[in-house]
């Protein structure tokens, strides 16, 4: 192999970095095609859009709480005292051509960023893509989601308008509620009392440097791991746990993924031009003596705000110190539990299944009924908290009393998720039964046949290869066996308690699975079809040729 690179620039690169080998591998990298695999890309692309529009905004934004008198072109605020941060936000909106567009693009992209991370995570969860060997990437994803939420909230706070200032005031209240260190933490963060003049410049640095830097680093690791592990795939013909079927990076995937970046970017810019987001000029500058009805945070903080809204009053004095459980429970303990359970879920499920294999073929959600039901339960719980954050807007929109809504939601938070779990699990198991029937008895063809003795029957035809491959990819997990508590000699076994717990959890997870047909059953079904089609082949063909 004495081929030399004719292009001098490329040769220069290759002689220094030996790039050709890596490029060859990279260009042949295979990516499976499915719309739900694009959700993570939306998050990535939104992040790039955020970096681009964010850099633009920093050129004009002044992160300062120094008081100035506004004299820009937005007439209703002329002569009003405000912080430089708010005044520069108005300037960006009204006096910098393209500034308003960039502000709106930045904000829409931020909402898309956190939203896409969330739905991407749901896709990973419901298809079991977090299983071995991808557990660490799941945790990185969890951290990215949290960082995205914090980053979004800080960005929402920067313009120092009345709405974001109200949000900061609420954050200050939450910080104060932290046991032991709350008062000191608040004083340090705000540089003394609230609102002070230090906070906006401080969170500006965190918002444009610290957190984006960490996100960028983690996104890099996240994606390198995707390349290293190779993408998961849905079951189908030719797809096994040992291969990956799809399109090579060069050219198809590159065109599709690259094109999708432009689509996401284009839609975000169109929204920025057509749909108002965060009209800071409407809210007025932040002053600690004013508030607006209907003060809500951006959607991703909604669940937290909702939890705080429906929490009943609860405050104790212990050893001469105040413990504000009204805030500690909904804003610290609850999200702490939610995030911990989310991050640890891959290990919880692996423990319950006792499964130590690698998984590269995705589950269809119905084939993991307990996981799916747990996911829907968590989603419902989250959804109710989310709705709670809009209790006042729901009240006024539908002419209801928020007191009644709040009480309803307090109960619903416990009842509806449990119900959702049960219903989802039933639906999954029913779908499993349907899949089993499809394999054994085929699909209803819609063709009615009259038998010689007068009976009418509907002809069932076997499912096609693609569907069959999909259905046969179902994995039946046998629950971990209940171990004996003592050995043959009647001596108590160590660790029996833990193993028995594992067996119980495992039975709860996998006990009511509807098993996939056995080889024998499938062979029998095939023979049955063969017999039927002999007689019906002709009819079937005639109808399907229309």
């Amino acid at each position, binding site marked *: 192999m004495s081929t030399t690179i004719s292009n001098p620039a490329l040769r220069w690169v290759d002689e220094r970095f030996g790039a050709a080998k890596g490029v060859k591998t990279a260009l042949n990298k295979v990516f499976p095609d499915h719309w739900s695999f694009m959700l993570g890309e939306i998050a990535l692309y939104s992040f790039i859009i955020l970096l681009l529009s964010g850099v633009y905004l920093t050129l004009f934004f002044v992160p300062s709480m120094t008081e100035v008198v506004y004299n820009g072109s937005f007439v209703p605020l002329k002569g009003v005292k405000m912080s430089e941060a708010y005044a520069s936000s108005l300037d960006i909106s009204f006096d910098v*051509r393209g500034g308003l567009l960039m502000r709106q693009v930045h904000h829409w992209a931020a909402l898309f960023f956190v939203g896409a991370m969330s739905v991407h995570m749901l896709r990973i969860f419901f298809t079991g893509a977090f299983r071995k060997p991808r557990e660490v990437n799941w945790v990185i994803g969890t951290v990215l989601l949290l960082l995205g939420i914090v980053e979004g909230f800080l960005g929402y706070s920067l313009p120092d308008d009345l709405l974001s200032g109200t949000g900061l005031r*609420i954050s200050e209240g939450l910080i104060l509620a932290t046991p032991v260190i709350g*008062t*000191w933490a608040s004083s340090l963060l705000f540089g003394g009392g609230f609102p002070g*003049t230090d906070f906006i410049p401080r969170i500006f640095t965190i918002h444009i440097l610290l957190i984006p830097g960490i996100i960028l680093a983690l996104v890099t690791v996240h994606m390198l791991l995707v390349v290293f592990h190779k993408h998961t795939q849905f079951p189908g013909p030719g797809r096994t746990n040992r291969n990956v079927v799809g399109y090579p990076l060069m*050219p198809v995937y590159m065109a599709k993924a690259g*094109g999708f970046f432009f689509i996401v970017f284009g839609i975000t810019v*169109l929204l920025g031009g057509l749909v108002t987001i965060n009209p800071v000029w409407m809210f007025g500058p932040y002053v600690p003596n004013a508030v607006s009805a209907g003060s809500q945070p951006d959607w991703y903080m909604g669940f937290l705000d909702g939890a705080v*809204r429906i929490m009943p009053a609860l405050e104790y004095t212990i050893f001469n110190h105040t413990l504000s459980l009204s805030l500690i429970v909904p804003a610290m303990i609850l999200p702490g539990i939610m995030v911990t359970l989310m991050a640890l879920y891959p290990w919880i499920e692996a423990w319950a299944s006792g499964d130590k294999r690698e998984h590269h073929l995705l589950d269809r959600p119905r084939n993991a009924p307990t996981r799916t039901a747990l996911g829907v339960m968590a989603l419902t719980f989250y959804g109710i908290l989310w709705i709670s954050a809009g209790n006042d807007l729901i009240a006024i929109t539908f002419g209801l009393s928020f007191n009644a809504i709040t009480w309803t939601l307090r109960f619903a938070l416990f009842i509806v998720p449990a119900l959702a779990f049960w219903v989802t699990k039933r639906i999954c198991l029913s779908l499993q039964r349907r899949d089993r029937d499809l394999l054994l008895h085929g699909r209803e063809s819609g063709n009615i046949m009259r038998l010689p003795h007068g009976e009418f029957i509907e002809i069932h035809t076997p499912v096609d290869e693609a569907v069959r491959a999909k259905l046969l990819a179902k994995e039946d997990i046998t629950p971990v066996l209940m171990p004996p508590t003592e050995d043959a000699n009647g001596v108590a076994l160590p660790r029996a308690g833990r193993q028995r717990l594992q067996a119980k959890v495992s039975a709860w997870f996998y006990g009511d699975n509807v098993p996939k047909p056995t080889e024998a059953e499938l062979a029998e079904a095939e023979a049955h079809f063969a017999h039927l089609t002999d007689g019906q082949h002709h009819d079937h063909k005639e109808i399907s040729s229309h």
Partner: protein
Amino acid sequence: MSDLVHHESSTTRPTPAPIPHALRRADIDPKAARRAERQVAIMFALSALFTVLFVIAFVAIDPSVEIGLPVIGTTSALNVSMGLTFGLAIFLIGTGAIHWAKKLMPDVEVVEERHEFASSAEDVAAASETFKVGAAESGVMSRPLIRRTLLGAMALFPIPLIVTLRDLGPDPATSKFHTMWRSGMRLHTDVSNQPIRAADIPVGNLINAIPDGLEEVEHEEGNLNERAKSVVVVVRIDPADIRSQQGGTAEEPWDYNGILAFSKVCTHVGCPISLYEQRTHHLLCPCHQSTFDLADGGKVVFGPAARPMPQLAITVDSEGYLVAQGDFTVPIGPSFWELS
């Protein structure tokens, strides 16, 4: 046709997956292929056109011009033109690239094998051996003195990084326990900053008030901290409807003929609240719906707040203007660790 796609590079390309593959119109019909080619090119050309239009819009449209559009209503002509042209310019590059990929690039799925991630037994043994030899050579296990002092040094060295954060803010000390309200200090109307005559307040009235001299204090301190603590709401309730107050005696009541002053800062998380219902005497917080009954000592009647709204004792001065009797007797605003 699919042969043509792969013949020249079959040695370096991944193998096609052994699954049935239907040919596309563009694979069979050269006309369809040319049509697809044209469609892609039109999208790219339109994109370029929109970029030009963007620049024209940027230069030509005055930022103050407004236009009325269906559905959207009156909006900034510049913003909507820039958003549409720039957005479409980007969007069309995306749709063009994808249309190209879908119609004209090979759509035969290929297969790549996976490999175990775990290292081979030999590699594990070699790595472990290398590490053990290296560790022995360093003497980290045989020289505990070095090991322990190093661990100690490593554990301590981040401390300065934390210590230097100390000067982010002052010792909160007692700052949360008092506001600028003093005995005899007049209540002024918020925004207009005028003193308030008791006789001017009808029953059912609401006044958002600040302490006299607040603006001077703010000017001196250069921040809005005092405003965040000392704002109050003043309401007048028919004395017959007042069921309780937080303090005062019959001789020296905290109200003045049914005129009551309460902190405006919610005891839950500190939103300034003045959603006052004059018939129910309820004060409602728009942030988390805590509701306080001002006719009953500011007690919480609904929502997550746990403490009543602190009452400011008021009276009138010799000229009939409302004045404070002193500072609040309890801390205002959200609860904190040192509160009780």
